[in-house]
């Protein structure tokens, strides 16, 4: 058995997902997204939200969007990028669709301008191309509760809720801080989020350390258990970095070499 522990502290879709609870979360999310236009995945930083989202994507017809790539997070940009991904996948030469026509004539700017004018129609029309139900993962939509644009971005969720799309479902990942702020400050959104939320564990359950670590490196499960006994509130990210012998440091001292 060879060890392949991720060295970079961000989830990659090349790794298998381990841990019973996490797999159960994936099952629940697959069900939720098949029934509702929106679902929320809640978890602390470094506890596997993105990894779970990748796994949901693997099991469904899915578009994964990391919003840190999109530039300004507004309704038009979100819709345009989703439509573009749909076109890239389904908009072949013989595809007949108003949105496809617009794209052929005016390119991405055309999609963006449609999305700015009528996001709901644009999205619905593009979704017709897919034929089946599409899951759209919005990762990092609200990466922090202190985000200066918090309420503007949270409003996107509100609009998605009201679009009432029948053949698509948005899966939004969120930190607990962000979730609490939405529930407290935006009640119309918070009240219904409660019914479509899956929450990941806040600490790694002892009985699942083995499953999680053995995905990456079966030989190090004992070491992992020791680390966790010493630091029970460690996140998965911290645990993996520690196993890699790269403890998460506050800073690295740079020493000039002569």
């Amino acid at each position, binding site marked *: 058995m060879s060890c392949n522990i991720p060295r970079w502290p961000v989830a990659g879709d090349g790794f298998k997902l381990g841990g019973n*609870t996490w797999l*159960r*979360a994936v099952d*629940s999310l697959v*069900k*939720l997204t098949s*029934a509702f236009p929106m679902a929320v995945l*809640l978890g*602390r930083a470094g506890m596997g939200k993105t990894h779970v989202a990748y796994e949901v994507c693997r099991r469904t017809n899915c578009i994964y969007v990391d919003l840190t790539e999109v530039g300004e997070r507004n309704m038009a940009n979100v819709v345009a990028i989703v439509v573009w991904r749909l076109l890239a996948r389904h908009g072949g030469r013989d595809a007949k669709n108003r949105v496809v026509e617009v794209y052929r004539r005016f390119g991405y700017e055309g999609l963006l301008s449609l999305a700015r004018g009528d996001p709901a129609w644009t999205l619905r029309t593009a979704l017709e191309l897919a034929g089946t139900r599409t899951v759209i993962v919005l990762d990092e939509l609200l990466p*922090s*509760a*202190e985000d200066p644009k918090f309420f503007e971005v949270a409003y996107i969720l509100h609009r998605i809720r009201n679009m009432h799309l029948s053949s698509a479902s948005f899966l939004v990942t969120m*930190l*607990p*801080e*962000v*979730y*609490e*702020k939405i*529930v*407290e400050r935006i009640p119309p959104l*918070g009240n219904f*989020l*409660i*019914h*479509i*939320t*899956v*929450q*990941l*564990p*806040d*600490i790694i*359950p*002892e*009985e699942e350390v083995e499953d999680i670590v053995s995905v990456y490196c079966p030989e190090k499960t004992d070491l992992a258990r020791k680390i966790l006994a010493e*630091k*029970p*509130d460690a996140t998965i990210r911290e645990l993996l970095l520690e196993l890699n012998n790269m403890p998460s440091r506050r800073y690295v001292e740079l020493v000039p070499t002569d």
Partner: protein
Amino acid sequence: MEEVKITLRKSDFDRFAERLGVNPDELLAALKAEVVKVGPGFRYVVDMESFFYFVVGRLYAGSQRRPEKAQEVTAERFEEVLNKAVDRLAGASGYAKLVDVKNAVMQELGIGEDEFVKRLGELLQTKRGAYVLLEGGDVKVQIGLKKYGFIKRVERRSIAEVIHY
């Protein structure tokens, strides 16, 4: 008393109130501050007299209340009160705002902020893994080296809370 007034920039005052963990509006009302527009921003003007009475009143009230309770707070009692406060104030995700918890505990036990921070720091050391703290949030409390906005109680060996629909 002579007519002396203190002028404060609004943003400075709000930041100061946030650091204290109090509601800026309440503090303004207690200080009887006036709002004055200066250039593009706002200033608060506080009369020296109101300021003086407010501060002295607080000091006096504080010295009256302290001595009776401060002694008897044991570590177990602190933990019990903290747990209750966290449970009561926890939101949908199980996390409670640390500032709210702090205020509740301080009021219940009659201890000051320094004492609360010290006690919580000690508790986190002895009961490792019993609490999870989050660094995000609008108002934060400094515990040790970091500032935290939320706290949650974790029962050991809990299996995940997956909320089914």
